């Protein structure tokens, strides 16, 4: 059945409801890894050695299915809806498990299952010999299934189902090595921070239902135009609240650096390439709603810009091989939010894709290095790995150049296009912040690269680094190739194939009345971006490659209050700890105090009746009965008083 849903902008959306063909099989995409999870978990004892095979098979199968579905969408572009059974249907509130497969879904499917498969392969080598090897692969499959539910759901509630399940599997995987207490704490921090975002998301859903009478994404985006801008503003901010938690943006980014406690392939898959981009996906998915409220979009842009800058500043002075990448991820996600905010929805997805390539690659490189260095993470104790790990070195070089924005690698195109859009849409300040963040990115990534691979070895005699096995290097090579040519192939210019492909799925920005900041043309802006990357790389080269860095941390070129602040991550974690844990604990303590002391104390004034009854209790030696009766009576008196005051 073919339907035409007309977006308010006049863009016609071809909606095809089908249960046949390849689209008809789309429901298998999340189901296969889910079955893999169940299979691995149930069969741990009997099939412990096969766990990786089962999980990898599931990931491979779901990748093939996703590729097939995506090919269908590429060949016959349309918005496909795959009908599925009803989930909830009560009093006009109907939610189904329907799948929504359009161009945006196709892109996400390929990224999620593609990187997912590579990480599965890589994990075979990386996790070899771990005592909970099967369980690890089970969790990976669970994550894959959850992420695919998130991407495929045609309904905000099914999207939320996946949203929560990715949180759960991320919790399980961050705390996977729970022998260290801090890992368990990190897992909890991630989960609870995300719950805070969920409050916003859930209230957003309720408001959506109250406004539109449905949670179906297609219905919401087609009706969005008619919305009052106040309602749209509130809705967008509520969903933004959910997105900043999942995608680690200010002010809820604090969980992501801690999440590095998980196994490194997990960091690559969940905390770089896929799960953390769910917030970006959500906002782009709702972009027809976003364009109704330009004010809300400007807030998104500022959140993204400030996060990009702030996290980049922190990354400059971190020492952990994964911490730097974690703050880098936060910063890059900030670029994506910035893009969404300035109306560059497709640029944002483009950056999401290239970032999945190069950041997934860099994390896997980090894993390969840690594998070789007996799990050391301090980059000051590395250096000179170029010789011993040639494959890792070369792939890392490509990844670093890509994220730094060296043309013609993937990151150059996507980041540059975001910045030019910011400029052309009139966000001058945000454009400058973005440029500064780009310089910083080139700087801290070059620092990361130089300190690990170049110079003289600083790791002493104890470790004997070696190149990783093929199961780990092959995914590195694949991702390196994608990082190298991904940008050129997908979208070398503003109106490249990816943009035209994604066009029907994003909100129209024509009537937002964007004006360029100034007279600069792209011919000037692009060289500016290249200069930014070059400056960052050059500074890092001067600071870390040309100088003697053998004295470790002491050889940082700059010191002072600012550097100290960056090194200590601006004390944000400490502040949060104080405010939330402290205040939350105090509230709870106050209530306990109330429960034990005040209630006991109140009784003395609670009147003769309670005392009389209280004596009964006292004879029976039951402690607080007297107090309890007193409180019940006091409550009753207050209640009667409140009610009577209204009628007498």
């Amino acid at each position, binding site marked *: 059945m073919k339907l035409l849903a007309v977006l308010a902008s006049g863009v016609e959306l071809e909606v095809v409801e089908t249960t046949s063909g390849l689209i008809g099989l789309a429901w298998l995409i999340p189901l296969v890894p889910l079955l893999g999870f169940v299979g691995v978990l149930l069969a741990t004892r009997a099939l412990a050695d096969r766990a990786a095979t089962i999980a990898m098979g599931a990931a491979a199968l779901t990748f093939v299915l996703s590729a097939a579905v995506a090919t269908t969408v590429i060949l016959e572009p349309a918005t496909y809806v795959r009908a599925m059974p009803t989930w909830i249907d009560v009093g006009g509130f109907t939610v189904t498990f329907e799948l929504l497969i359009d161009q945006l879904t196709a892109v996400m499917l390929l990224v999620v299952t593609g990187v997912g498969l590579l990480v599965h392969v890589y994990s075979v080598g990386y996790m070899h010999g771990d005592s909970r090897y099967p369980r690890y692969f089970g969790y990976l499959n669970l994550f894959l299934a959850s992420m695919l539910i998130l991407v495929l759901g045609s309904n905000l509630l099914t999207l939320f189902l996946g949203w929560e399940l990715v949180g759960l599997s991320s919790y399980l995987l961050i705390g996977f090595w729970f022998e260290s207490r801090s890992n368990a704490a990190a*897992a909890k921090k991630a989960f609870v921070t995300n719950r805070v975002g969920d409050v916003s998301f859930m209230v957003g859903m*309720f408001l959506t239902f109250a406004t539109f009478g449905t949670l179906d994404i297609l219905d919401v985006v087609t009706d969005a135009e008619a919305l009052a801008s106040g309602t749209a503003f509130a809705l967008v901010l509520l969903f933004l609240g959910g997105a900043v938690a999942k995608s680690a943006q200010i002010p809820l980014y604090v969980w992501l650096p801690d999440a590095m406690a998980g196994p490194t392939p997990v960091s690559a898959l969940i905390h770089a390439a896929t799960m953390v981009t769910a917030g970006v996906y959500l906002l782009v998915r709702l972009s027809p709603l976003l364009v109704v409220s330009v004010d809300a979009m400007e807030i998104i842009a500022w959140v993204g810009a400030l996060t990009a800058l702030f996290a980049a500043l922190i990354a400059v002075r971190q020492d952990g091989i994964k911490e730097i990448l974690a703050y880098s991820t936060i910063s890059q996600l900030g670029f994506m939010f910035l893009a969404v905010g300035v109306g560059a929805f497709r640029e944002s997805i483009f950056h999401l894709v290239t970032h999945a390539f190069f950041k997934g690659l860099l994390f896997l490189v980090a894993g390969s290095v840690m594998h070789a260095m007996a799990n050391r993470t301090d980059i000051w104790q590395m250096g000179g790995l170029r010789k011993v790990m040639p494959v890792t070195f070369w792939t890392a070089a490509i990844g670093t150049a890509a994220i730094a924005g060296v043309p013609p690698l993937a990151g150059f195109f996507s980041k540059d296009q975001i910045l030019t859009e910011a400029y052309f849409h009139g966000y001058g300040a945000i454009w400058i912040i973005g440029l500064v963040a780009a310089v910083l990115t080139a700087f801290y990534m070059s620092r990361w690269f130089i300190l690990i691979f170049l110079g003289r070895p600083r790791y002493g005699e104890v470790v004997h680094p070696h190149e990783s096995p093929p199961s780990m290097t092959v995914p590195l090579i694949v991702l390196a190739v994608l990082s190298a040519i991904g940008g050129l192939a997908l979208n070398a210019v503003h109106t490249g194939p990816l943009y035209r492909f994604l066009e029907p799925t994003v909100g129209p920005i024509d009537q937002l009345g964007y004006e360029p900041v100034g007279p600069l043309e792209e011919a000037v802006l692009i060289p500016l971006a290249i200069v930014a990357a070059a400056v960052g790389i050059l500074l890092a080269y001067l600071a870390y490659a040309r100088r003697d860095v053998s004295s470790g941390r002491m050889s940082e070129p700059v010191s002072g209050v600012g550097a100290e602040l960056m090194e200590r991550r601006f004390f944000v974690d400490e502040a949060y700890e104080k405010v939330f844990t402290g205040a939350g604990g105090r509230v*709870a303590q106050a209530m306990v105090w109330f429960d034990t002391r005040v209630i006991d104390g109140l009784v003395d004034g609670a009147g003769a009746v309670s005392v009389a009854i209280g004596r009964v209790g006292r004879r029976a030696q039951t402690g607080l009965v007297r107090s309890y009766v007193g409180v019940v009576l006091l409550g009753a008196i207050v209640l009667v008083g409140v009610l009577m005051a209204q009628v007498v």
Partner: protein
Amino acid sequence: MFLAQATEPLEIPEVAWSSFAPELALTAAALVLLLIAIAKGRQQLVAVPAAVVSLAAGIWLVTQQLVVPGGVAIALGLALPALVFAFPRRGSLVQAWGAGLALVGALVLTGWQYLTVLEGGGTEVATIVPQAALAGALANDGIAFFTRITVYLTGLLVVPIGYGYLQDRRINRAEVEPLLLLAVVGMAALGTANDLITLFVALEVLSLALYVLAGLARRDRRSQEASLKYFVLGAVASAILLYGMALTYVASGELALPAIGSSLGLVTTDRVVATLGLALITVGLGFKVALVPFHLWTPDVYQGSPTNVTAFMAAATKAAGFAAILRLYLVAFPGLQGLWVPVLAVLAALTMLYGAYLALVQRDLKRMLAYSSITHAGYATIGVVAVSDAGLSGTLWYLLTYAVSTLGAFACVIAIERTRGGEVGLLELRGLGRTSPAIAGILSLCLLSLAGLPPTAGFVGKLVVFQAGVQAGLTWLVVIGVLSSVVAAFFYLRIAGTMFLEDADPALPLPAASSGLTVGTAVSAALVVFLGIQPQLFLQVADSAAALVR
């Protein structure tokens, strides 16, 4: 005698036996089980005559075209001597099986009742045509049916869950099952009660049975304390409730709830007296379902009572109490809506936050679950103050999802308690995910459901209630509910984290499940998942339950 001759012969209203058939069957079963327990060695002497009576009644019912109730009577009649014959020396097994079968029978009868009042067989959406019975004392409507389903299901799961536990603690005395059945009858009756007297009697039937059950462990000081506290405080609450009912009668001159409702809607009615009655009734019922500040008994009683009784109280009493609240406020007090909606909404907000925060600082698992149950009373109240069909079905549905989740959680606590004895604290849970993954997994699942995470029953429960709240314009209350569920996620997660993310203490014995416990836990866990993924079956029943006798 002369006077009697002079008056008109009393007109006895026709008793619609079918309107309380499930309760009737359960009461009879409770009595017979009690007699069997007394008979000790000569159990067949009780069982055979009881079976004969039951069979005769069943056959007569079948001849009257009442096939389902007849069939239930015949089946129960046949089962009784068979059970006694099968377990000659194990009285408690006869009791447990007997109670279980009686509850199955009651569920079947409830289903039969439900089908008879359903209308619109052809159309897709079935609606309930509410029926009043016994001169308006009973109402067979949506609240009644759904409450029956919830409490019978709870009872049915509690029997196997508690069986091994009672034996371990040597408190498997013969009165346990009959008392449980009587409590269930009281709860179901509370769901059907349509006038003040029936309502109060039903409340006392269930309360008295629970007072005794809470003190089942006679040698355990905590159990005795729990029982006495529950009794003393319950008595105070009952007195307040009764006074409130009396005042309501004074104000309206009516006992039947619908009549009170129409009377209170009139301008001529004395609103002062009626409001006083309303306030006192709120206190009394607030106590039963543990709304803050009338919740104080809950942690002590839940912690001290035998754990299977706690599970039963937490799951079933709440359902029954809210059935009474729903009916009273929606049928009898709609005229005073402007007064009680804000009051109950504030109480709900307090309850949600207070329960969640206090649960945070608990160390004992049962006590933590007690505070969690307080929190959940707050969520269920959101559906009441929504004053809408959606809210009504939302609350009923919420109570079912809460009942299965909390039952599953307590069942896991029992499994841990059985071998470790005494109280189960957080420390005892360390590393349980490694040593006994099944129990740790199910406990985590139930806790995630209580926390309201998809795709569990608890998520759909909260969703429907919150949805009703938003529709009724109570967004602030829903926001508080969502916030409190974040706070609650902390402590549910802490339990799960302790089990999965910490190392086990090798000195601790492993939890052990008996076969009954395994079945009960597995069914609860399965329901938690099923109601989360395919809630449609019961949601539709809940949806149609919005039809009330007014």
